[in-house]
């Protein structure tokens, strides 16, 4: 059973990591805590589910998996629109305004999702079913979860490579370290910020898209991921990729084994970990 507990921990950690990645990037590069992060996750989920439902009868399996990316794309587009329309206007203002704007965006987007997709549930289980199960040391484990872990790994590697090795990424990191200096060096803050916001939004959408084969897209689906992403950011440290990874693994494994051994503690456990970190090392494990 311990094999399965470990796999479960890895799966949940993967979800946490991917969900918090977008939030962390926007926070790190732009210093904005995007409260609408959960809404972008939800948009990704609804879009992916809807797309899969439309094409499931006619498309070959490969296209089906590709169609999940539609969630990433739409979330990115919405992020772009958000940034251009009102987030942008607030750079000169203070933090309060930015937080309030993203809060307003959250409320707005919740209803926009309802206007577009209505109140019913969207089930898109084909990608989950098609992959079937594998047998791991005598235990049945759905292959789809391994797929999610793979995609998350790829996404993480992409971001790591991008931030560390590409010119664009380095510019983004420069902005996150010292905005004024970066402007002084001639970086186009506006364009770069938009890019960061779109990247973060797209990642949120991807996280949402990946879960819909196992859980229906429903109104309010983004609320819990927002809180979880938040916890990981707090535990791992703002703006730190390594921190996000370690934080996600820590929370994921603690939860998985915690449920098996001491089920009562489940929800408060996550907050407890966050609370301890906040007291002991308030900037998070790897935060600045």
């Amino acid at each position, binding site marked *: 059973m311990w094999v399965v507990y470990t796999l479960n921990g890895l799966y949940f950690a993967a979800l946490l990591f991917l969900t918090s990645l977008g939030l962390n990037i926007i926070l790190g590069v732009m210093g904005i805590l995007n409260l609408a992060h959960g809404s972008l996750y939800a948009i990704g989920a609804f879009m992916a589910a809807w797309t899969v439902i439309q094409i499931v009868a006619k498309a070959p399996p490969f296209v089906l998996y590709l169609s999940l990316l539609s969630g990433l794309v739409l979330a990115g587009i919405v992020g772009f629109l958000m940034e251009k329309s009102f987030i942008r206007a607030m750079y000169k203002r203070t933090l309060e305004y930015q937080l309030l704007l993203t809060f307003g965006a959250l409320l707005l987007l919740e209803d926009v999702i309802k*206007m577009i997709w209505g109140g019913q549930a969207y089930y898109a289980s084909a990608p989950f079913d098609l992959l079937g199960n594998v047998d791991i040391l005598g235990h049945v484990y759905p292959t789809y979860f391994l797929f999610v872990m793979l995609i998350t790994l790829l996404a993480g590697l992409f971001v790591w490579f991008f931030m560390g090795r590409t010119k664009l990424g380095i510019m983004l990191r420069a902005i996150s370290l010292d905005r004024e200096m970066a402007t002084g060096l001639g970086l186009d803050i506006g364009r770069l910020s938009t890019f960061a916001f779109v990247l973060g939004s797209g990642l949120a959408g991807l996280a949402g898209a990946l879960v819909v084969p196992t859980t229906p897209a429903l109104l309010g689906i983004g609320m819990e991921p927002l809180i979880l992403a938040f916890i990981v950011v707090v535990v791992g440290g703002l703006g730190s990729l390594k921190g996000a990874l370690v934080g996600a693994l820590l929370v994921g494994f603690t939860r998985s084994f915690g449920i098996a051994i001491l089920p009562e503690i489940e929800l408060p456990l996550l907050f407890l970990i966050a609370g301890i970190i906040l007291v002991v090392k308030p900037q998070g494990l790897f935060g600045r």
Partner: protein
Amino acid sequence: MVYVLIFIVLLFVPRLLSIHDLMLFEYGLTFAIVGLGFNLLLGYTGLLSFGHGAYFAAGAYTVGMIAKYLPEAYRLEILIPAALLFSLILAVIFGFLCVRHTKIFFSILALSLSMLLYALLFKLYHLTGGSDGLRIPLPSLLGISFKGIRRPEFLSGTYYYVLLVLFAFSCVIMKGIVSSPFGKALQAIRDNEVRAELIGIRVRRYRLYAFCISGMFVGLGGALWTFVNGHVTADLSHWVFSGEIVYMTLLGGFGIFEGPIIGAILFTYLKLYAMGNTQYWMFVIGATLIVLVMLLPNGVAGAFVSLFAKLKRRKAAEGSAC
């Protein structure tokens, strides 16, 4: 002056409004107290907390828990000080952790801590009623029991005056605080932390004081709110509820003393009428917030003040032109 006149007018409000409107107004008054407290931290000290629902919940649950476990002590004269005490205690603990940081860290910490309280209130359901919450019966006041009368009668009678007096007190005390040297120091910290430290202001300590005072006001508002609502749930500590507190303060304008009061009353009506008239009320509230931030960053009161100032300047200019 003007405020005394306003107070006198408010004394007559129960005769002017219907019971329903009066109850709505009372919600507004309790949130006005909350707003005043919250704005000490936001407007005057420059710290934005998306977690002040925790103190509201502290005050509210103090009332609820006493109702449940200590019914003999269920008297307004005990409940109000108790609510102040518990919200103070919570504000000291959470505040101590939060004021070590500023800006985004502060906001994140405040949010996280309030969610921790939310999780506890939700989870310990045998104690707190969990998601079901706690019922708030009518309290007694200085020996007078209100058993047998219905809540609307209670609210439109004695309770209104109690609330009004406490609201007036809150205004007076808060005005005193912001006008005092302490209040000025807070503004100095808000405007330039480094300089404030250099001229000898103990930044962290003052922030903590501001945090605690604001927590107490919010807790008082929470406690007073419980009698109007009749029921408390863990949602009060959820960050979305805290977000509403921020919204109200912004709506009225956090640069002006009276801003949060106006914002609180406006928001109460805004939300109710949005919910009463459309199923897309969240869109309405969200869009209003965005428009507000972009166009009226000083809030409704701030916009009035600017308009008034502009008119005054124009008159003065015209006057001097003659």
